[in-house]
């Protein structure tokens, strides 16, 4: 598994306030890191699994994709501009989102923080 991606589950679940903010989130989404895709499954704000996508039918409500170097920069303690936030990555054309965006938008700060969870303070 891509380094940092393997930390999402543990880092999110260790943050009670983040789990609380996501308490109405129960779904799976796809996280694309370059050519590799991961299915991130969340139940009531807790990340229950982060697994490489093995089957074509394994999918999620929405997909968030960026190139591997973009995520590596994103996960640095102080990322360069355009790489520091999902929405800034969208604005710069570095990341792409697809699928049913409603649950993402309804819980946008939660999902931004889930993605950033592997970032070292």
């Amino acid at each position, binding site marked *: 598994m891509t380094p940092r991606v393997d930390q999402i589950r543990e880092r999110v679940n260790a943050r009670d306030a983040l789990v609380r903010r996501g308490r109405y989130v129960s779904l799976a989404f796809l996280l694309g890191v370059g050519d590799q895709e991961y299915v991130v499954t969340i139940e009531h704000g807790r990340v229950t699994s982060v697994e490489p996508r093995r089957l074509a039918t394994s999918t999620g409500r929405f997909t968030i994709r960026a190139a591997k170097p973009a995520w590596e920069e994103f996960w640095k303690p102080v990322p360069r501009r355009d790489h520091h936030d999902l929405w800034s990555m969208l604005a710069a054309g570095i990341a792409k989102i697809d699928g049913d965006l409603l649950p993402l938008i309804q819980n946008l*700060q939660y999902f931004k923080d889930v993605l950033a969870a592997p970032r070292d303070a």
Partner: protein
Amino acid sequence: MPEFEPIVGRYFTMNVAGEACRVYMEEAGRGIPLVCLHTAGADGRQYRHLMGDSAVTAHYRVIAFDLPWHGKSNPPVGWRDREYRLTTDLYIETVRAFCRAMALERPVVMGCSMGGRVVLHLALNHPDEFRAVIALEGADRLEPYYDLDWLHRPDVHGGEVSAAFVSGQIAPQSPDEHRWETLWMYMQGGPGIFKGDLYFYWYDGHFDDRSPRIDTTRCPVYLLSGEYDSSCTPERTEATASRIKGAKATVMPGIGHFPMSENPALFRKYIVPVLEEIRG
């Protein structure tokens, strides 16, 4: 007695485009009037640190007001049946109405984001009414990158989504205390107000075809933008400056879209010299 801050706030009613608007304003300091315009979907509290800075208030009367529909200013009577949408003409007229009502003589006007946009329109159309304009995170042309309809619909919390959209506009280096205070204001905005402001910011306010006509010998123009601003990027700021002869542009490293509220200690290092230059 508590140790009061130097900021004092008051309400009054002014006429804007034929409508009575009850607005809230606050001020601190004495000297050259410095009218401060808040960002889209926010209010004048963004300038509280500038109003508490004695290096500024020793020479400037710093005034911030909440646009109608924002902060503690009311929407006009009958708002319930209207969709709020800020236009270039209405915004220009609102700022001029405020300056007239306050009897300000050739104030400096500083605005951020959409406020940074409108000050350029003021410099173009009414250069003799203003001593100088300062555009923070302001450009003459921007490109939208998300659908504004997400900002006002019953199945998405408008305040939370507005804050979540702009949270990435704050630099990672900015102190958490100020980051979350800045976002708190976004969470408190009225329904559909951020969306209505962005209509001006993204769709109605473009004027890169006319900005070269700004005469900076009549009204000096200063542009200051944060490195981490992903809407009014440093590139867009510099492009704007290149079209306005005599405009002075500064890119502020380590700051995002809300310099005065997200990192006031760093921002003052950039703004105090500009204010000193303006007062001569």
